[in-house]
């Protein structure tokens, strides 16, 4: 069979890290682990019915729903501050002209960026995190979000515009 489902353990081993990075960007490092558990448990429940051709988009869709549930359940409480240090370090390790921080003209060590990312509307936040923290191409970001490549590019573009504005505000506040 060309497209059989892999054993769940192999699926888990392959996707645990990128989905973890995605959730750290979406809900912050403190709550990412709980969301990650919920994500893979939900995936295991539904696994026999999964479409083997694009399991990455499938698991990222589940993770995104769990992140949204998480935000809803915490709606009345303080906003989590996303500061996935690991991701920041990763970005710092290789200079990329299109990285979120680079695009903002800020040092990659600015964790304020991630606080600002947490303030973005969920779909834009998801697009930015998938593009820069999970390091997906726009086509794959679109697939994971159930939109076109173009729509994904647009979401990231809008998000970066907002992030640039927050960065500008931060600079002014620092004066």
């Amino acid at each position, binding site marked *: *069979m060309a497209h*059989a*489902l*892999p*054993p*769940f*353990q*192999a699926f*888990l081993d392959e996707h*645990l*890290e990128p989905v*973890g990075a995605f959730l750290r960007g979406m809900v912050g490092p403190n709550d990412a*682990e709980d969301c*990650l*558990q919920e994500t*893979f*448990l939900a995936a*295991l*429940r539904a*696994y*026999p019915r999964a479409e083997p051709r694009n399991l990455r988009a499938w698991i990222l869709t589940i993770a995104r729903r769990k992140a949204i549930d998480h935000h809803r359940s915490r709606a009345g409480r303080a906003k989590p501050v996303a500061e996935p240090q690991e991701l920041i370090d990763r970005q710092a390790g290789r200079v990329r002209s299109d990285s979120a921080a680079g695009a903002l003209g800020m040092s990659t060590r600015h964790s304020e960026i991630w606080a600002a990312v947490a303030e973005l509307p969920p779909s834009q936040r998801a697009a930015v995190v998938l593009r820069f923290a999970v390091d997906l191409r726009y086509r794959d970001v679109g697939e994971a979000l159930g939109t076109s490549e173009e729509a994904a590019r647009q979401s990231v573009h809008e998000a970066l515009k907002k992030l640039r504005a927050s960065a500008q505000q931060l600079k002014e506040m620092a004066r």
Partner: protein
Amino acid sequence: MSEFVDRLAARANEEGLVDIAYAAVDTPLGTGLVAATPKGLVRLALPNERIEEVLARLAEEVSPRVLEFPARLDEARRELDEYFEGRRDRFELPLDWRLSHPGFYRRVLRATARVPFGEVITYGEAAQRAGNPRAFRAAGTALGSNPIPIVVPCHRVIRAGGEIGNYGGGPEMKRFLLRLEGAV
């Protein structure tokens, strides 16, 4: 991350989501694998088998909900350890026979499961015990496809001339097992 994965597997198991639990198992000739459904031991892979292929086939033939969860294989691994140390001459594990073809093949394997430690029978005798004395070649095929070797002791079936014959785990494994049992 491994702590995270252990916790995930334990929760999945509590929820009854682990259709196949597996674990590595040490043998004197290398590392193998044991896998169980809720019904019992369904597969034992010997060290010469490729683990990824074994797991991929389990996912296809039984269920893709395959997780490494050694806790569910503690008893199997304990009995195998004791067997390899010469402290056990029979297994008391529940078995899940679903990976053997029902009919003659499965009857050959069930008959073989009753051959005691330290004894051997021929392929012809195995065929006879399964109800078809002339089908010794088919008996060989059935034994060659044994999904649970060692526990279903297909190594105890040898050629009429006294040669030990083929073995899925390799001839050196068959010789090793027969020596361990004092049968050769």
